[in-house]
Every structure is written in structure tokens, then in C-alpha cells.
């Protein structure tokens, strides 16, 4: 019985491997910095998503998901709901207004060193 404990990972591996149908997509999401990355990837921390990885440099979001549990459109919606435009769905102005000043990608890369103070900087 104890041996089972050591080998538990293999059982889990088997469990995961024969799961349902999966798909991997990749699309562009606007954003600026590591905080954005965190927010974007965090928005996809829901059931059905296997992996979400956003690249700060290329603005490319890679998502692997279970097609039975979540649709591509849902994924775009989830990202837009936290304030980041995808190439299919734009974030609403209200949500966008609430994201951190240094992430306001629509107002020019404000995370970069423009000499104006950020909006939320006193």
C-alpha cells in the first residue's frame, strides 16, 4: 500500500493523459508588462484551461484548453473581462479604466519611461 504513495504521480499522469479532447490556440492580447501578464494569465485560471502563457515581447497568448468545457470565444471574453483587448473582443472602457496605470496599453505604453507621471501616482 505504501508503495502506492511513491508511485501516485504515475497514476495521476495516466489520469491526465487520457482526458478529453484538447486544443491549443494562440492569439494577440494587448498589454505592457509583467503585471499585465499576471492579470491575463490569471483571468484564465478557470476550469477547462490547461495552460495559458502570455509573452510580454510578442503579445502572443497561448492557450491550451479542453474543447468540451470551454470555447475559444469564452477565452477571449475572459481576457477582455479583466481589461485586456484581444484580437476578437475589446475590453469595456469601465474595466480598462480600473487597471493599474502602468498597464494602460491604449494610452501608449505608459509602463515605459514617458516623463508624465502615471495617473495613480501621487
Amino acid at each position, binding site marked *: 500500500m505504501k508503495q502506492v504513495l511513491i508511485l501516485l504521480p504515475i497514476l495521476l499522469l495516466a489520469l491526465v493523459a487520457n482526458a478529453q479532447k484538447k486544443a491549443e490556440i494562440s492569439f494577440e492580447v494587448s498589454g505592457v508588462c509583467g503585471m499585465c501578464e499576471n492579470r491575463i494569465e490569471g483571468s484564465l485560471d478557470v476550469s477547462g484551461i490547461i495552460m495559458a502563457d502570455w509573452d510580454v515581447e510578442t503579445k502572443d497568448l497561448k492557450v491550451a484548453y479542453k474543447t468540451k468545457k470551454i470555447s475559444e470565444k469564452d477565452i477571449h471574453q475572459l481576457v477582455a473581462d479583466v481589461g485586456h483587448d484581444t484580437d476578437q473582443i475589446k475590453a469595456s472602457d469601465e474595466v480598462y479604466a480600473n487597471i493599474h496605470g502602468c498597464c494602460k496599453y491604449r494610452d501608449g505604453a505608459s*509602463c515605459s519611461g514617458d516623463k508624465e507621471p502615471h495617473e495613480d501616482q501621487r
Partner: protein
Amino acid sequence: MRLILILASLLLVCGGSAQNLSSLRGKVLIVDQSDQGEGLGQSQEDPEYVGLPGAYVRWSHDASSTTVTDGFGFFKISNANVGDTLIASMIGYSPAGWVFDGSSYVDIPLSLGVDLGQAEVVERKAATQFSLLSPLDVQSLNRKELAKAACCNLSEAFETNASVDASFTDAVTGTRQIRMLGLDGKYSQIQVDNLPGPRGLSVVQGLLFIPGDWVNEIHISKGAGTVTQGYESITGQINVALKNPETADPHHANLYVNGAGRKEFNYVSRYDVSRRWSTAILIHGLHNEQANDRNQDGFLDTPMQHHFVGRNEWKFKGDRGIRGEYAATYVNTEAVAGKASVFEGASDWNGWMGRMDSLTSDWSAITAIERIELSAKTGFVFPDAEWRTIGTQWNYYNHQHDQRFGKNHYSGNEQFFRGNVLYSDILGSTNRNFTVGATYVYNAFSEDFSVNDSLRMSPSRKESVPGAFVEYTWNPNERWSVIGGIRYDRHNLFRHFLSPRFHARWSATENTSIKVAAGKGYRTSNQFMEQLGTWASQRQWNLNYYGKTVPEEATNFGLNITSKFRLNYREATLTLDGYSTQFQNKLVVDLDRSTGTIDLYALEGQSFANSAQAEFNWDIHRRWDMRMAYRWVNAHTDRTSGNPTLDPFVSRHRAFSQFSYASQLNDRDGQWRGDLTCQWIGAQRLPTTSSNPEAFQRTDMAPDFFQVNAQITRQFSPEFSIYVGVENALNYTQDRPILAADYDLEPVSSSDFDQYFDASLVYGPIFGRMLYAGLRWGIVAPKAHGE
């Protein structure tokens, strides 16, 4: 501190080759708050900006480009390419990025506060990191990893690590020692903040003086390692980075209690004293006066202890590239163990400790340690050439160890002083750099060993070792990097020590790297303190090397393959390694000549330890991580008169698996975390007892066993969390661990006890299942300002 972690993790990701292009000048700014009133509703117009000295500026893709702003906040950074991202950061401020557009000057404002969002980026990083780019085989354990087992001190911190084995030295004192690559911890160079740590007389017990809650990171490097820190590394280097004025939280307190009666308190805080000076205070207290004898053998299963460790560190950040770290540490520990009957009745702590001074009939083990440690590190970065640095490291300690185990009394004092000066520069480009330096070590030992209160031996020696070294690092391209070094030390007692060491890394693909290592190391031994376990027995010390200390000498070769890949879309790491250590000279410990002796003599014949390890880490799910590892060891030493050659107390096989769960952070950044660690420890050879009467015999091969630890942590917010856990959940205990203790109804006669008592034949846990609980409270780094 988080920024440092972020930068450190970026270092792992960034390689990059530099091309000399145009350079960029600029200034890092912050809002000047000195002449402004506090309060909300402050006008946002015309905030006054001032330069920020000491901020880090670097290209995002090239960690080696890091430069520091001068006293007015100005910086100059070379290799500017249009489109590259410049990152400016400073503790206490949100880092800012800026994309280089070809201009020659830029102002970069930083806003106050560390964003929690940034912190989460760190939290998501794996708790154990394997580097693909460093030529050294280094594994880094961060606070998250260390929190998986509520380790009380460093000897317990390796519970969740496959590369380092931890086991008890004996059945009474509760002291743990570590093993790496199948060899005792004394063959690893253990450092604290890159300065000599547990070594000399404290080589085994020194791990107890490093409270787990003080540790920020542990770097485990297998193989010979760097030459810049001395000749003492044989199987590898373990560097413990303590929390310091930069990495500590403003306040952090930890309380811990366990079922064995141990109560611990840790407190770490830091203060910014001025713009240049900051300080950290670290306090650790441990108290245990509970007498545990669960296996009813008349001996305490766990020691009773009083520990106090305190540390104060000062950090200096000058405007023109000067950095300094100055620390003082004080350790005072007292421990009593032995026959349970000693600790019944009216006596108190002072009475028990008083047994140190006089010979008593009931067997007890009394230990007192007092230690003072001072260290100073000063570094200088040339303002116009960030790659050119001078570093000096000075440290001193005085270690006093007194103990009485049964009839044997020991009193040892060690004085240690070391100075190390390093100069680093490049040869033409940053792809070729070198470090040269010189070291001086003074180490004086004076020991008294008496049996039945008559002095048997008082070895003393003074080591005085000047040395010099050079190390060359070459990164010809992204595929290759090589570190080669050699050091020469002139030992006043033991001739010349020449330690060549070599490490190379070749990246077969972007995600797979192959590393080789070869090197040589030396050490001088201190037989009494290295064989601490034997003290808990009636064995007589036979020092057959005529009082001379043998300098041990060994060569180590290793190969490591690390591969990162995606499995089911999620990140996984597979590490395979093999190491071989060959001794040219060794102080052989022989417990097999007779059950009544410990024989120490110089190696004749051969001694080696071969080890292989496979480790698989997988980020299995958004919430789950797992790790599986298997380790094989063959440790062989030729002993005289045909005694067994297999090293005792080393399990040939060890398997390990671990699961970690972390829930989604709630809106207050609260979280549930769970960790489960299962280990299988294979059979170990025990010193033979076949010549004893049957009641005092044990098997020559210890049985294999399983060990399961689990812990649940509830983090209410980053400031406050509580945890409960269980060690040895299956309640496995070693069968009758102490020879000549009262396991049967018939009491053991005192003459039998005097002849056969042995509590050092320990292969597994003594205490059985143990529950513990604790809490962590703190004030984390300042949050972002705002509404």
C-alpha cells in the same frame, strides 16, 4: 526583495550575447516627498522629481548589462539596440520598462511601492529552480520550497529535497546530519551568505544554529564548485542565503510548537536607517523541557533544549559603487538527553546542566555551545566599468563546545579567521571574464578529551593557510559556457594543496543542457566532533594515526543533463546526474572492528562514492505541482582486517515523491496550500554487532522504510498564515534503537550496559508520528500608493 527575486529568476531566463553598439545615458527619478505634506487630495500638478541613486538599470534581455545609478540618479548603459527594453528597478519602487527608440538620453520615473501583482509573478515560479545556463549544477530552493516543511533549522530543511539526505546521528541527541552524493556532510562545503558556515568543530551541529525561518534561499551545487571560496568543497557546495536588510520583510514573526514539546520563536525585521544604511535583526529562540520516552526504553527519544541565536546585519549602499555587509551572530545552545530517570524528580534545568561538571552514574548527554561570529564584506564596482569589481570578505568566529556523554567529557575551542580578496574583470568583452584573488585562513583548535575525568588526550593545532586562486569564465556563444579555476594553498602543517576545478555547460537544444564537472578538494578533520553519533555509545576511541590529523583529499567527477519541456502543455523538468568521488586520502571511520571501539585510521586501499539521481518536476495543473526522484549510491571504503567495505548508514536506494497544491488567491490574497512528501529509504548497512550476546545484537542490514510528511497552510493574507503538519505520518520507528536499553522485562545489568550500550546505530526515526503547528505573521513590503 521581490524585485531581487524577479531579477534572479530573469537571470535564469536570460542569456544573450552582447554586441557593441551605441550607449544610452539617462536618469532614474522619483517624486520628491521631502518638502510635501502628507494627505489625500494632494495636487497632482508639477510633482517635484529628484534623481534616485543606487537604482538598477538593465536591458531586459541581458542580465549582465545591469548597472547602478550614481549619486544623482544618472546612469550610462552600453549596447543599446532600437527596440530593446530597458528596465529600471529599486527596492520599494515599482520597476519601470522603456523601449529604446534610438534617443541618447531618457528620464525614467519610478513610482513608489511594490505591486502585489509583481509579487505574484514570483509566487508562481517553481519553488525549486534548475538552471539551464549556469555551468554549475545548481539547484535553488526559495522560501516557498522551504515553507513546504516547517523546518526548524537547516538540518531539517532538506526534508523535501532529493539531493541531500538527512539522518540522525544517534538515538538520544536528536542531532541530524546531512549527506550529499553518498558522503557525510563534512565533505560538502556549507556556506552562509558565501562565508564559511558549519565546519571545523561545528561541522555537524552547526546546522542547528541556522533557523529555517531566517533562510531566504538555499543554493545546492553538486560537484567541485568554484575555487574562489577555498579548497574545502569535495562533493559540493551548499550556500545558505539568510534574510538580510534587502531581502527581509519589514517585520516577520513565527511561532512553532510540536508534539515533542518543542516551542520556537523567530523574529526577523529590517529597518532603513538612512539612505545608505539599512539593518536587519534576526532572533531565534527554542525551548523544550518535555521528557519524551514513547518507546519505553528508559531513554529520552528527543533531547531537551534551550537555544538562542541572534544576528544583526548592516548593509551599506554607497553612491559610487561601494557596497558593504557587516554582520554579527551569537549562538548559545544547551541540550540535555539520556536516561529518562535522570530527568524525573525535582531537579531543574541548571541542575541538569550541572551534570556537565561532575561524573555521574546514570548515563546522560549534556551539551553546551557558545559561538560568536563576525563578518564584513565590502565590494566596490568601478563607476565607469560595471564589470570590474573588487570584493573583500573577512570573517571571524570563536566556537566553544563542551559536552559530557556518559563517562566521556569533551571541551573544544576553535578560533577561525579568514580574509578573502577577489578582483573580477573582463578580457576584451563580457564573454570572457576572470576572477583572481588571495585567501588567508587561520584556524586554531584546542581540545580536551577525558574519560572518567582523567585527561586522555588534548590535541591542539594551529592551521595557517595562505592561498591564491584564479578563475576564468568563458561564454563563447549561447551554446557553451565554461568555468575553469585553480587555487593553490600553502598549509603550514600539511604541505601544498592544489585544487584545479572545471565546469562546462553545453546546450544541446534551447531546452536541454549537458554539464560536466571535475575538481579536487581537501579538508582537515576533527575526529571527535565529526563522529558525534559515536559519543552516544560505550565505544572506546582508537586513534590509530598516532595523533596526526590526516588531510583528506578527493577528486570529484560529474555529469548532469537537464531538460525542460512541456508535458500535456505544462512545464516539466527532467534532471539526470551522475557523480563519482574518489579519495586519495581519507580518515577512515571503522565501527566494525569491535562493538566496543571506534577505530580511526588513514586510508589504505581505495575509497569512493558513486551516485546517480533522476529527478522529474512537473507543473501538473494550474494548482498542482509534483516531483519524483530516485537516487542511487554506492559508497565504498577499504577497511583493515577484511571489515565490511560498504559505508554504514548510507541507503543504496532512495525514492521520493512530492505533491504540492495551492488554491486560487482570493481577493485578500489568501490561499490554501498543501504539501505531501513520501520517501522510501532503502536498506542501510549497520556496523556489525554479531559478536555481542544475542540480546544486544541487531541485523547487519537495516530494513527499508517509508516516511510520509504532510502539511497544510492557510494563508489569510500575505501578512498572516497558520500551518499544521505531520512528520512521519505512518508512525514508523526503528525497532529497539538503543543497544543495552531496557526493552525486555529483565533489566539490563550495569556491567552489560557498560560493555554494550550503543545508541549510535540509528537508521530511521526514533520518535514516531509527530504533529506540529505554527503561525507566521508579518508586515510585507509596502504596497502601492493609491486611493
